[in-house]
């Protein structure tokens, strides 16, 4: 009960304060903006309802991008972590490159990808994949190598092959680490989708935000942001639930 009550209460207080500040004009004064640009929570809620079909349509586009991009990052990240764990050559070859991939500024990369892949889902998936891959791979790899070496010796004297040690000992002990990485990555995946859509504003919530901000449709832009947050929280919750079902020994 407290788990839901406390954040809900805090959010309600925050929204209430925002509503007061926005409707009294205090927020516009503070930000030095015209008051019609500043959206109050009530206006956002109104816009959420009025533009529901447009928002739902675009949310579905973004959700699809996130799910596909994130799914690819999960498969690639885990495969890479296992390959790097099993082979020192693979690890030495790719570790610096994987770290280097994180230093690429996505904001700069996005337009370049759009030139390469054209408008559409392609560049967006690449961006989501790129930002999610790192936390998943690094955490899973850490987990795989955190296994007690004594447990591996024990398994070897019980006739376990390399694959059986991986399957019965290393992968289960890495799973909590994997979930930490996967939970970080899912929040970043949503940001990645928005960044991609900003570079190629075709459809999706990111593209909608981009257009609405240019047209000073602030309330609808905030409504889109609220949906993005809800999406990230939902995906995170699904992962947390999966973790509780799978990692039962902690």
């Amino acid at each position, binding site marked *: 009960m407290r788990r839901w009550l406390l954040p809900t209460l805090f959010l309600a207080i925050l929204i209430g304060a925002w509503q007061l500040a926005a409707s009294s004009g205090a927020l516009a004064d503070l930000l030095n903006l015209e008051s019609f640009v500043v959206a109050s929570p009530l206006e956002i809620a109104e816009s959420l309802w009025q533009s529901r079909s447009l928002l739902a349509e675009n949310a579905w586009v973004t959700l699809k991008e996130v799910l596909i991009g994130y799914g690819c990052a999960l498969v690639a990240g885990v495969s890479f972590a296992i390959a790097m764990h099993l082979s020192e050559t693979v690890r030495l070859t790719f570790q610096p490159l994987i770290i280097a991939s994180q230093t690429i500024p996505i904001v700069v990369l996005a337009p370049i990808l759009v030139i390469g892949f054209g408008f559409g889902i392609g560049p967006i998936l690449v961006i989501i994949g790129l930002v999610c891959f790192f936390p998943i791979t690094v955490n899973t790899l850490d987990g795989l190598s955190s296994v*007690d070496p*004594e*447990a591996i*010796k*024990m*398994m*070897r*004297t*019980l*006739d*376990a*092959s390399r694959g*059986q040690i991986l399957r*019965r*000992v290393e992968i*289960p002990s890495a799973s909590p680490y994997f979930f930490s990485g996967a939970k970080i990555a899912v929040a970043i995946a949503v940001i990645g989708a928005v960044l991609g859509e900003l570079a190629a504003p075709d459809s999706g919530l990111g593209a909608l935000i981009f257009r609405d901000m240019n047209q000073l449709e602030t309330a609808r832009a905030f409504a889109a942001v609220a949906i993005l947050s809800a999406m990230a929280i939902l995906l995170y919750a699904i992962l947390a639930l999966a973790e509780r079902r799978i990692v*039962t*020994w902690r």
Partner: protein
Amino acid sequence: MRQDTKMPAETEEFAGSIASPASAVGAGASVSIRDLGHSYGELTTIARLDLELPAHGVLGLVGPSGCGKSTVLELIAGLQEPSRGEVEVAGAAGAPERLAHCALMPQRDLLLPWLSAIDNAALALRNRGVRRSEARDRAARLFERFGLAGFERARPSELSGGMRQRVAFLRTLIAGKPVLALDEPFASLDAITRAEMQQWLATTLSADPRTAILVSHDVEEALYLCDSVVVLSSRPARTITRLSSPAPRAADRDEAVTDPAFVTVREHAMQALRGGSE
């Protein structure tokens, strides 16, 4: 890598023997160590060691902490290659052959927390490709004899220290290996549980004899469980003396360890141990 083509057959035989303790016992294997020396880089852990252990013999290795006792077990079990000298198990010197003949019971129970007690015990069978249901059936038959009936599906965290240790020992036995390498198996238990487990292990080993090497820092434990005990010096390890346990020993542990002959040998061992660590 592994040369264990005949292991599954031995396991069948073992599963039969342990279900009806009166029937024949699985194959034994001798252990022979000649002029063994070992070092990690600059650090010499074993100066020189010679050991002969007949099939079904039970040998204790006692010595001060950090003297390389556990390393000796790993060398016997084929988990490491010695820097110098020879280690033979059942006449075979190669590490893969030694590995195929030995099962290691580590100091901590190292039960896998994501598996139930029975799946932990059946690990060796699963590693050899036995189907899950059959592996569980075979392990379940031993649970009762080991005082673990009713705890088959419990997770390791739900078991007491003594029970965890018994599951770990069961896991080692089910592997059906002729040689058991026991690395301070009861060090983490409280004194009362440890005494119970020592008695239990003695009974188990006499019902199902194996060649066993027991590493311990507890002289009394080693003399009670083993036929003979080698006292090692502090690092780099060398043999100070080899003592025979008084035989026959009483079945009851408390009676056995208070026997005057036992006490005398224990004092000799303690003196040797003190002399070696100075």
